[in-house]
């Protein structure tokens, strides 16, 4: 559902934007400011969930390991694929 709305909004913006001025988006860094807002809201959601906070210590280490290895693998493969496809 969320996915569907996001796709529709993206293409709506893509269509409507052809008839609008769009330079203000980059000029006033609108996207970065909205991302600040999004991350702040995410932080509140994490901090206000008591269940999540109480399990924090035992779970954070495993989470850290999985995300670190996932990031490393993605980075290495992306760089390799980029190099190979440019040849």
């Amino acid at each position, binding site marked *: 559902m*969320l*996915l569907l709305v*996001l796709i529709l*909004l*993206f*293409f*709506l*913006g*893509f*269509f409507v*934007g052809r008839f609008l001025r*769009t330079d203000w*988006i*980059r000029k006033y*860094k*609108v*996207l*970065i400011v*909205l*991302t*600040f*807002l*999004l*991350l*702040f*809201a*995410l*932080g*509140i*959601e*994490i*901090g*206000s*969930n008591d269940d*999540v*906070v109480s*399990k924090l210590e035992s*779970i*954070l280490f*495993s*989470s*850290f*390991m*999985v*995300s*670190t*290895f*996932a*990031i*490393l*693998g*993605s*980075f*290495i*493969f*992306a*760089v390799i*694929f*980029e190099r190979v*496809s440019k040849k």
Partner: protein
Amino acid sequence: MMAILLLSSVVVGVFVGRWSSLRLPDWSINVVLYVIVFLVGVDLSKEKVRFDVVKNVLLSVAATVLGTYAGALALSFFSSMKRFEILAVASGFGWYSLSAIIISNLYSAQLGAIAFFSNVMRELYAIVLTPILSRYSKTAVVSIAGATSMDTLLGPISHYTDRETSFLAFAHGFVVTMLVPILVNLFLAFR
């Protein structure tokens, strides 16, 4: 510098959520997300659509999925977690809400929590690394972001790279996002 500011807005949010009674309504995150995605669409509308992009999208999706599983497999050789658990958690590709919900419903609350945090961390990694790595490799920035390259990271990616990479990021995030529920279920079936 920007990465530190972005990260600190999460941290400030956590403290506000922990030690104050300020609560944002459930729809607020989604509404901000909607506005971001809409504006990225508006911003990209001045770009000509090019169809040779399809190859790049498939290539970067392959790099993201295969790279993530290569990393998860490497970890499984010295972690106390079971191999399929690590693979299922990694299959969130940064979409913490969905992967955590699926895993805690079908498997265990603890692994669900790990899915939540590791995928939040993937997003945080991407936020921190995007400004730094965008100079080195634009596609690596997209792959690191995983599924979030179409939503949360779309703003930073389009800010730090070019319009072509923003297109790639959205299409890549779109494909990876659709893979998340399929792949999480697949690895949970291996228990």
